[in-house]
Each structure stands twice: as C-alpha cells, then as structure tokens.
C-alpha cells in the first residue's frame, strides 16, 4: 500500500463520504453506482417489492436487511435480471439496466451469487472457475474446435483462477468435483467464481447462511477485501452481528418497501426498523385488560392498517 505513511490521519474515504449522507429512506449518495427508481413487483394481489428510490454508494459495502418475506431476494432478482418488474427503472454506472436479461447484467459488471449455492456439482472446482472467465475465444462453437485459437487464453484463465482459489483456500481442492465440497466451501467457491468475471459490483444473497461460525469470520474478511480492492458490495443478510461488523451502510426493507437506511451503528435503533422486525406493538401486553376495550382495540388496528 502506498498510503501507509498517512494511515493515522486518513479516515476511510467511503465512510467519510457516507457520514454526510442523511439517514432517510431514498437519500442521495455522493457517488451512486446503482440508482433505482419506482420499482414494483406484484405476485397476484401481493406487492413483493415497492421501492420508490434507492441509491447505492460506489466502493462501499451496503447491507440489505429486513425480516423474512420483506422482498429482499425478489429485489435482488429484479436488479440482476432474474425476474422482471411490473414497472420501474434503474441505472448502473449511468447505463440503464431495466429489462436487460441476466447474462447482460452480469456482463455489465454486476455479478450475483445465490442464497442456495449453485456450485456446478459435476464440474471440477477449477472448471467452475474457468467457466466464469470473460472473453474466452474457446467458448465459441467453431473456435472451440481449433485449440490453438484459445489455448493461450485458457492458460491465462487458469493462472488467474489458481490465484483466486489460493486466496479462498480452495486451491488444494481444484481438481475435485465441486459437488464434493462442504456447504461453506461452496459459498466460498461461488464468491471466488464471481470474482473471475472481474465485476465492478458484486451482489451476495445471504453469503453467511448455513455457514459455521469459524467460516463466517473468513467470509467477512473476504467481503471486506473485495471493498478494499475497489469493488462495490451489496449483500442480503440475516446475521445482524455480521452486518454490523462489515457494512458501511445498511438499507432496511419491510413488506417490499425501504423503511430505513443509515450507518450500521445507528440504523438498528431506528423506530421503523424495530417496528419492522418486532411489530409496532411488540411491547403491548396481550394480557392487558385495556385491550378488551373495543375503542382501544379499534385504535390499535387502525394504526396497524396505516403502516
């Protein structure tokens, strides 16, 4: 690192930028890489996603949290082209990505992983990695018949894959079938594979789900390393401890909407977040006799409806 001499005086520039951002839903960011406007997705009568405006800061780690069924994964699927919204638009690095198929979104530099890991089981770990490389002439049907046309690129890709696998402690497994890896190793492989595409933004859908605590630490380290290399990370997570530990900014979704955003230290104390997670009347004692009063009950019901 060249800026070693100035470490004691510098504050993380991303943190600094974000410290000026207002902690309200849809607040503008100084350098937004992903800007979402009026995205709606309905499943029959149920509105799964209803996001008016959201900006994601570039080169920062943004966590997307919210209770089960808040629409986080659906929102992810919409942004990455795996689902089509009923309306709405969004831009990534200034280019509109709305309605683009998933492969094009990935080629634009926004690469995702999945909640249920999708390791390609009957391919080796190394082939999983090589498959993700971009601009491989050997992936053309006709060129593939003439190995001299693509052998050089294959060597480059293999070298790069070895480097990334080394970093994720998977190099020893390179020649094993991906199906033989443990759940945690598959999460690592999926993240490593996404890196093979040289993404500008990486979208992780619950990277810590079903991973043992020791591996969680290492996964968090990898996520931070991605940010330090200049990548933007947006991740969905349930593990609040992990979120607080690693993220620069937190966006909270509930019932399809964005109900709060802010720095991780303060957002958890936001009334809207507490309501979203625990219900607005979580401290109301159900044994309270006053609930028997129809007037009070009606008032509470009215409040619930308004939310």
């Amino acid at each position, binding site marked *: 690192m060249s800026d070693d001499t100035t470490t004691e005086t510098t504050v993380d520039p991303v943190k600094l930028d974000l410290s000026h951002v207002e902690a309200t839903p849809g607040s503008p960011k100084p350098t937004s890489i992903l800007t979402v406007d009026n995205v709606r997705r309905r499943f029959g009568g149920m509105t799964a996603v209803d996001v008016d405006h959201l900006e994601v800061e570039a080169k920062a780690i943004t966590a997307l949290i919210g209770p089960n069924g808040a629409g986080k994964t659906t929102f992810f699927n919409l942004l*990455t082209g*795996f689902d089509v919204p009923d309306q709405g638009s969004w831009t990534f690095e200034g280019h509109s990505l709305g309605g683009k*198929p*998933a*492969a*094009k979104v*990935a*080629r634009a530099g926004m*690469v*995702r*992983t*999945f909640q249920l890991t*999708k*390791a*390609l*089981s*009957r*391919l080796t770990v190394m*082939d*999983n990695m*090589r*498959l*993700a490389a*971009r601009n*491989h002439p*050997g*992936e*053309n*049907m006709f*060129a*593939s*018949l003439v*190995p001299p046309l*693509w052998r050089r690129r*294959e060597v480059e890709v293999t070298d790069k894959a070895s480097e990334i696998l080394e970093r994720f402690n998977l190099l020893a497994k390179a020649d094993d*079938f*991906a*199906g*033989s890896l443990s759940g945690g190793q598959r999460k690592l492989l999926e993240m490593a*594979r*996404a890196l*093979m*595409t040289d993404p500008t933004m990486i979208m992780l859908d619950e990277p810590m789900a079903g991973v043992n605590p020791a591996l969680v630490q290492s996964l968090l380290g990898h996520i931070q390393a991605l940010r330090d290399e200049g990548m933007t990370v947006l991740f969905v997570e349930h593990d609040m401890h992990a979120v607080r530990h690693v993220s620069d900014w937190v966006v909270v979704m509930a019932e399809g909407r964005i109900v709060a955003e802010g720095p991780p230290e303060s957002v958890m104390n936001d009334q809207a977040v507490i309501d979203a997670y625990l219900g607005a009347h979580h401290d109301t004692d159900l044994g309270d006799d006053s609930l028997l009063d129809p007037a009070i009950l009606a008032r509470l019901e009215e409040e619930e409806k308004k939310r």
Partner: protein
Amino acid sequence: MDFLRILEQALGELIAPTTAAYALAAIGLNLHFGYTGLLNMGQAGFMLLGAYGFAISTIAGAPFFVALLVAIIAGALFALLLGIPTLKLRGDYLAIVTISAAEIIRMVGRSTVFNEQTGGSSGLTGNSFKETFLGLSPLPDGRSAIGPLEYLNNGSDSWWVRIVAWSVVLIAVLLVWLLTRSPWGRVLKGIREDEDAVRSLGKNVYAYKMQALILGGVAGSVAGVLFVLPRAVQPDSMGRSMTFFIWTILLLGGAATVWGPVIGSMIFFSVYMLLRAGMRSALPDAVSSAQIEQIGGMLVGITLMCLVIFRPQGIFGDKKELSFNVR
C-alpha cells in the same frame, strides 16, 4: 445346434450399418442430454426428417452431397423450430414438445396428403434413392470376406455402406471429443448442472442450448440417412420405439462420455441379435418369430429400466461424477 451361426450373426451386428446409424443418433442425443441436459424425446423425428430430406431430394434429381445437405438443413431447421419456443422454458417441456413433434413428422409422412413425395405409409423404396450413393463407391464389384463376415462390396447391405457409415461415426466422435473438452463444452456442462448459475456469470444460455440442440439434431438427421441407405424409408419403422432404443443405447454406454454411444450401440445390437436368434433356435416350436420380436422389445424396455435404476452412469460413466446429482 447352429450355435456358431448365432454368434456370427451377433458379430455381424457389431459392424452393421444400422448399428452405426443408431450410434450416430445416440451421439447427437448425447450432446443434447449428456452434455447440455436437454431432454430430447424425439430423436427418431430428426432421423426420419433427415431420411425424407435425403430420399426426396435424391428422387427429385439432386446429386448425393446436395441431398445430404438437404438432410442436414432439415435437421437444423427442425431443431431451431423446436428450440425457439421451448428452450426458454423448463427442461421437461422440451421432452413433451420433441416427442409430439417427432410423431407429427411421422404422421404427416405416412398420411396420404403428401403421397406423391413421401409414398404415404408404404414409404419410399430403397432403389429409388440409392443410386447416387452407390455410384460413389470406388470398390470393385464382387464379394469380400473378413474372417467369418462376408458381404457384397457394393449394394444395400454391403461393405461400402459399412465403410461410409462407420467413417461418419468416427468423424462425429472426433468432433464431440474436440467440442466437449473445449471451453465451449464446459459451458454446456455448466448449463446441464445449473443454467441460472451460468447465466449469472454472463453467458447467453439460450444461444448455447440452441447450438447444442441444432448440432445434436443434425447428427440425428445424418443418422437417419445412414439408417435408410441399406433399406427403404418407412415412417412406421422410425417412431417412438426408435427413440427409446437410442436412449437405451446412450444410457447403456454412458451419457456424457465420448465413446459411450458407439460402444453402447454395438453391445445393444449384438446382444439383441443374440437374444432373438437364440430364442428362435432354442424355442422354435414354443414361440413364433413375430412373438420373438415382441419379447425382444419387452426385454429392451426392462433393460432400460434396470439401467436407470442400477447403473445410471452406464458402462463408461464415472460413478463419482454421477453421485452428486442429488437435487
């Protein structure tokens, strides 16, 4: 007991043109199912279309290679037509569409509407389209024998047909070997495992599936040409049971292996012959020859079931590779 003659017949099946035709069709199906995970249940339809394309254009006066090209284009167009609506849907739909499309081809072929071109249910006789192919033969007339196998040099059931058919199969094996060890083949295998994962890495999954469908379909239509060279074009001999034979061959040899379809076809037909000829000579009074055909067909069905249940990786497949396929 003419035990030797039965063995000889089984040996002959190893190199029979029909065995080669089925091997090539299974190679095409292997590209679909073994490498890309596409469930094509209508490979016989591709074969019938190739046979019609070749025979009808030859009868219309086309030279051999033009007629072959017509068969290839027919197979490619059929694949394109089936793929456009179905490749975006889940895999099972392709199975339903292909099996019905193959039946449609057969029904249209045997209907009286196109009697003039297809000959209806009686089909097209071999002599009407074989001349151009036999005319290409450099072999002198006469008979030749290699070991116990003796055939005419030229003609329907000849060495010339065998040489051409197996050369085509070898070329197809070479192509599949080159394709599947390349990065292109790696993408296909990735799609077989999980197409959403491949999509998320920026690959145009639809285009790859289409390429695989067309390539395998063309292999099927050329196999159809090989299949009819020693006989007539008979729509009813190229129906669903043909598709199931091809599946049995593929699963016997081992899906997603380069040599599996070829060895599978050789074993399938020689054992099939051994069984039928064996039954015919062992129980000549107990069962009629028509019944023997039917018993043979039943045994094929039982073999297919046993394979899928007990040895899904086939003869050449890697058991380890298959054991991860638990989803």
